């Protein structure tokens, strides 16, 4: 996996005045989930997005991934517009376990190369590399059901890596894991990021996770989600979980919470109808 020169080439992701509204269906009101949002990612950076529940973080990721079309504004991936289609070169890791339970780990990872048109040998090399990077070589023949939650997420990460994506989107990938595993998985993601040189966008609700992993952190407002603030961490590229010992870490986390607190209170105020509404609206829009 080659490293990418910083600064060269088209902007990986560019959002201009992007908004997403879910049309009301029978019994459900029109829901403006997102926007308007302006955002530009820098090439090769690690960008995290935090925000209160229901603010549309996941919707933002789905719009960038091309799984949903934006209702307004323009979304561009490497200069080319995305409209509800998933472009090549984008990898996504979801919060839910997306490993295919009927395939072994190796078959799961190889699944990512279905449409690649590569030769068999090339495919096997890539699969081997991805397994190695994700630390799964010893488990290649196991079935996902035999692995822990953290390992299953690693399978999903490996499956994403195998296509050598230039943009990796992570939607609260460690939400279902315990704290210690989260921290360790965070280090894994950093390692993957450095080795692949891809641009990474991480959605998370855990402030410490965002502060530890990211170069920049976007704080979203309560619904309809807008980017309230972008916090720069200034961490060196070569970092791991030891970064939490630095004094700046506490300051950054405090700043994030300061911005987030007001928004969270707003979101909590309408949490009961709000989040359930958004969930059903999101489900209905599929």
């Amino acid at each position, binding site marked *: 996996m080659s490293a990418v020169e910083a600064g060269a080439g088209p902007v990986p992701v560019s959002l201009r005045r992007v908004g997403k509204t879910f049309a009301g269906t029978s019994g459900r009101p029109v829901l403006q989930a997102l926007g308007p949002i302006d955002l530009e990612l820098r090439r090769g950076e690690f960008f995290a997005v935090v925000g209160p529940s229901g603010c549309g973080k996941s919707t933002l990721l789905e719009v960038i991934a091309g*799984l949903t079309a934006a209702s307004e504004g323009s979304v561009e991936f490497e200069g080319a517009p995305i409209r509800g289609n*998933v472009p*090549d070169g984008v990898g*996504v890791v979801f919060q839910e376990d997306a490993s295919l339970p009927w395939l072994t780990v190796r078959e799961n990872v190889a699944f990512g190369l*279905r449409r690649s048109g590569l030769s068999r040998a090339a495919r096997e090399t890539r699969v081997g590399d991805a397994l190695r990077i994700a630390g799964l070589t010893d488990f290649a023949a196991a079935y996902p059901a035999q692995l822990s939650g953290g390992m299953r997420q690693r399978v999903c990460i490996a499956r994403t890596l195998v296509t050598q994506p230039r943009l990796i989107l992570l939607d609260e990938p460690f939400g279902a894991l315990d704290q210690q595993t989260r921290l360790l998985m965070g280090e894994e993601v950093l390692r993957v990021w450095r080795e692949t040189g891809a641009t990474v966008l991480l959605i998370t609700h855990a402030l410490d996770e965002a502060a530890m992993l990211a170069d920049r952190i976007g704080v979203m407002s309560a619904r309809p989600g807008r980017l309230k603030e972008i916090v720069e961490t200034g961490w060196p590229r070569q970092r791991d979980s030891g970064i939490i010992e630095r004094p700046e870490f506490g300051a950054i986390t405090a700043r994030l919470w300061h911005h987030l607190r007001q928004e969270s209170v707003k979101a909590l105020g309408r949490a009961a109808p709000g989040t359930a509404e958004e969930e059903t609206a999101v489900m209905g829009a599929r």
Partner: protein
Amino acid sequence: MTLLRLYRWAVVGAAIALLEVLCLKRVIDPITMQAPHLIVRDLYRLLASGRMNGAIVKTLANTVLSLVLAVGVGLIVAALLHRRRTLRDTLDPLFATYYAVPVFAFYPFFIVVFGLGDLPQILIAFMLSVVAVIVNTLNGLDRIPPVLLKTARIMGLGAAETALRVTLPAAGPHIVTGVKLAVAYAFIGIIGSEFILSRGGIGYEISFAYNNFENAVMYPLIVLILIASVVLNSLVNGWERTMLERRGRR
């Protein structure tokens, strides 16, 4: 696990032994039933003589035919219904009460329309098994985690590929449950119809033997069917279990 299996065989063995004793002691008189070891002997003779081969083939062929039809049609109908919410909601009461209705009640009607051939039986067996396939397949399709379909889109899989490589395997266990039920129902449908009114097949032979007081033919045939259905059921069950275990569900 193997200990349990041992217990089960022991229970079965004890039951058969009890029957044997009751028969030999004439508590059960020979006109009602002959002793188990005699049944086994008669079964062997019957199979060896080849007298029942035609009936066996007929019953089996019809069962397989109805089964294949039921699974094929059932899968397609389930796939179609899964997309059309309104149609599915309309048919829902039908599926829910379906197995409460004695489908055999339609057998006379089919005979009247189609004549006394194989078709009415196959129709009955088909009617019995197809709904099991549809309901279970729909169940399986409902329970596919949306994240798997999202993953398919991320990987750029087309509609056909998604259906074949993701939807079908994901719903696999439930579909196999439907097939398991369909096998049992197809069997019941064919044999039951042969019992009621037929020109051939094992059900007919059993009915004929019963009416002619031929215990030496009747009991072996019954035992034959019991063994066949248990074996079939265990096979499909085993398939279902491997599938579930691999996926970590019991």
